[in-house]
């Protein structure tokens, strides 16, 4: 399918954010509906800042953000209604159980109680958390906490899921469960945007990969398209390092 005919899930135009130095510097980015998009880049490249602006956690200095054709800066509530955010550190409550947490999330997203409960129980089952549904999260491992956070992101059936380093610190089994759930989500028509430092994961999971350096998108496309840009074949890691080194030389 041609990109121009596909619905746009996320469109960033001229996005800019400066702290003591420019963190995001006139970023243009388009992610299409039903796409798994990986945003990769070296430390301090502006990946997390970009995603925090998309989710409404930071206000950009300049530029526009459109989520599912909703102007996220003009109508943040409507944009948040169709978006879910999963940070690298699970944002859950130690003193709540997974089921109580999901009931809280359902309330925030104004879900019908019966639908929310059904979905919550299904999600806990898929993620292997059903036996722990009534246990407080305070005793959970990092993997279990991350899975609870993921369940919270999925329970309200968002069109766009944004994840910041979701696999950091997870064991192999938990990582596989998270990847499977995300793939299922994309297969069902959802859009996933993920930042990661694990290039193998980006290579295997993503439909398209964006490489961000110094707050700008320096390359984007499928793995083959990125290879063509660098004239290389092989792994994403080699291509990534070549592109980043080239950018450093140019700077």
């Amino acid at each position, binding site marked *: 399918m041609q990109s121009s005919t596909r619905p746009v899930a996320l469109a960033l135009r001229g996005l800019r954010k400066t702290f003591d130095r420019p963190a995001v510097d006139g970023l243009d980015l388009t992610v299409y509906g039903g796409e798994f998009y990986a945003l990769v880049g070296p430390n301090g490249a502006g990946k997390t800042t970009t995603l925090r602006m998309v989710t409404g*956690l930071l206000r950009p200095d300049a530029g526009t953000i459109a989520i599912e054709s909703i102007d996220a800066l003009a109508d943040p509530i409507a944009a*948040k209604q169709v978006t879910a*955010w999963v*940070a690298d550190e699970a*944002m859950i409550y130690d*003193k709540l159980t997974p089921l109580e947490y999901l009931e809280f999330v*359902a309330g925030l997203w104004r879900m019908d109680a019966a639908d929310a*409960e059904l979905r919550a129980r299904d999600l806990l089952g898929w993620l292997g958390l059903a036996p722990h549904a009534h246990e*407080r999260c305070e*005793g959970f491992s990092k993997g279990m906490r991350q899975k609870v956070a993921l369940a919270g992101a999925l329970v309200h059936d968002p069109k766009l899921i944004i994840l910041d380093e979701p696999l950091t610190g997870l064991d192999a089994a938990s990582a596989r469960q998270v990847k499977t759930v995300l793939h299922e989500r994309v297969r069902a028509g959802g859009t996933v945007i993920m930042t990661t430092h694990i290039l193998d994961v980006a290579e295997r999971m993503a439909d398209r990969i964006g490489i961000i350096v110094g707050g700008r998108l320096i390359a984007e496309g499928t793995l083959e398209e990125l290879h063509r840009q660098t004239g290389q074949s092989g792994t994403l890691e080699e291509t990534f390092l070549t592109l980043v080194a080239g950018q450093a030389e140019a700077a």
Partner: protein
Amino acid sequence: MSEAGTLTWLAQHELRLSWRDWVALMTAGRRGRAYKVIIALAVFAACMHVFAYWLVAGYANVALTADVPTLVALTGTIAVAMSLLLSQAMESVTRAFYTRADLELILTSPVSPRKVFAVRMIRIACSTVLLAMLLAAPFIDVLALRGGARWLAAYGVVASIGALATAISLALTVALFRLFGAKRTRLIAQIVAAVIGAAFVISLQLVAIVSSGSLSRFSALQSHWVLSHAPALGTFFWWPARAVLGDLDAFAAVMAVGIAALAAAIVLFSRRFGDHALAAAGVSNATVRQRRWSTHFRRRSPRQALRVKEWMLLRRDPWLISQTLMQILYLLPPALLLWITFRDGNAAYVVLIPVIVMAAGQLAGGLAWLTISAEDAPDFVTSAPIARSSVLLAKIEAVIGMIALVFAPMVAMLAFDSLRAGAVLALGILASAAGATLIQLAFRVQAKRSHFRRRQTSSRIATFAEAFSSISWAATAAMAADGTWFALVPGLAALGILGGVRLIGPPRE
């Protein structure tokens, strides 16, 4: 520098940690604040000396061979101090048990854990003693200045009761561990510490109310019943009081008891301290199954969902339970006085209403900090489709709801006797709680719930504003209960504080 692994080397390490902990507590972790803290402490010390002069200078010439009423008053004061120190020491010992920090490093190192924990217990004793000495110093200094060097013996007595309080708190906490296990001990120890801290003062007030209809604890100590049942002058019961007056024999005995008790506690408990601490550290990994009244989801608006979440977290917060219990304990004497007042048909609302209004303000300040600043998942809530103003409103509603739950019985009790007084109390509680909440809102910073103890050092302006706001609303309520239009003056002052806070509070995006 001492040789590594020796007691003195470990003591130096603990001393350094304590010092840095204290500096961080005083400066809220900001280096530039150190000189301001020194100036503030010097001013505070000077003010405390002036206050102490006003309060105790007249007693400086009490003779070494004091009479029974003087000894009863001194012994009562020492008992109050002892109960407060015991509460403080118990809190420190419980924290030492449940703080994982360097526990695994210590237990996997080739240093004897018994030695390490013995030093740690001494550290707790030292911090308890130091705190007691700092608080007692202005009074002792004034007495020594006016009555002679013999009063300096009081420093020794304070040190001794600090050591004794640490020893008793160690024994109590270990006993709780053995009785209830690591999982329940933290909550029970916090409640016991709160009760011990308040119990003696409250008991004296209750006795005073019943015997003389007054809230003053000293009226109980000087009552005919207490004086007639006091032990004979020559007994050991009066040693601490005599030691304070400068009796050297009594001083030596009191010091010996304090040091011996602490040494015995260290010898007895240092061996098992590591086992208990390990058991306590394992509690964080333990599974807590939550029983639910209903297993089905309920349809809620975002604000309802936030309120229910806050109430659930507050209900499951062991610190809050112990603090609320302490607030309720402190309200028992006024409640009793209220009951006696009704019985006698004497309207003493002017005394009672401000006490309750002030307590409501203080409790609301703590609750507001927990709900507003100590949000565990701030980014998650921000990423939800709900306006920021609605989030804050829901949190304020959660605080006011909790305050209503705690104070409604007192309002109802008062309204039963006088509707007007009940209405004044209800409005006073609402204003005081709302004021404290708005101040916390203006000075909100992202923090962890476990940092609650340090919340007052992160912004002293907020702390003072909260205190003055509660005092102003208490005064407003007292005057309103008395039916005078002068109530508007402290009311306007309270509103002025809120306006000032809005002006000087940190800017928001």
